[in-house]
């Protein structure tokens, strides 16, 4: 399941709904991404006051659906969930939730990691940081590309 929304989400309620009435699920792995107040590659002291998330409506949904379908092809999953927020967010706010449920933990852990790694390099979202009044688009990170590339050869 995929959702793109401005409003916050309740992690507990989302996970309860995801696994409800499916006793075949024995493991549920979850990643929640939050807004940091310090930009990753910036010198200390440049606090992030807020971020703004932009996306490409239509293509975002399409890419997330492809990523979810790919995870379901690679691992025996009972349920998956991707929620990504857009708009204005502040430090400590939740940005993204990715969850994968399976009979056993290995598939759940691996699929969860796969979902967020591919999301970060393929889904058309962009972050802009507000640092002391200056608005700066966040640059992509090579480490994200490397994390996603691992899954090109490794099969679940």
């Amino acid at each position, binding site marked *: 399941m995929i959702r793109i929304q401005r409003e916050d989400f309740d992690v507990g309620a989302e996970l309860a709904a995801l696994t409800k009435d499916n006793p075949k699920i024995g493991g549920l792995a979850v990643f929640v991404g939050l807004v940091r107040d310090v930009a990753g590659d910036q010198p200390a002291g440049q606090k992030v006051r807020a971020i703004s998330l932009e996306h*490409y409506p239509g293509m975002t949904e399409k890419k997330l659906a492809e990523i979810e379908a790919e995870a379901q092809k690679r691992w025996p999953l009972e349920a998956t969930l991707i929620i*990504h927020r857009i708009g204005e967010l502040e430090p400590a706010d939740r940005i993204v939730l990715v969850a994968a449920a399976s009979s056993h933990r290995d598939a759940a852990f691996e699929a969860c990691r796969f979902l967020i790694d591919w999301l*970060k390099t393929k889904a*058309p979202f962009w972050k802009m940081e507000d640092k002391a009044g200056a608005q700066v688009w966040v640059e*992509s990170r090579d480490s994200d590309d490397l994390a996603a590339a691992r899954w090109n050869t490794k099969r679940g």
Partner: protein
Amino acid sequence: MKILYFAWIKTKIGIANEDVDPPATVTDVASLIAWLKTRGSGFADALKDPRVVRVAVNQEYVKTNHPLRAGDEIALFPPVTGG
């Protein structure tokens, strides 16, 4: 054809989207980008480094040799930074 711009490419060009009627020399993504760069300093600046320009045609990632047709929706944007 319709072109959409996102993130700092949009900021530098100054518009989020436009309908264009390019000359006949524009047959693929590479020739479209070459033509766009002639349309002003904002375009030239935004599109100067091909390593940081991603292209989607009809909401699928493509390479610059991808052919274009009338009615295509083309999006130009920097590497994504969600999650």
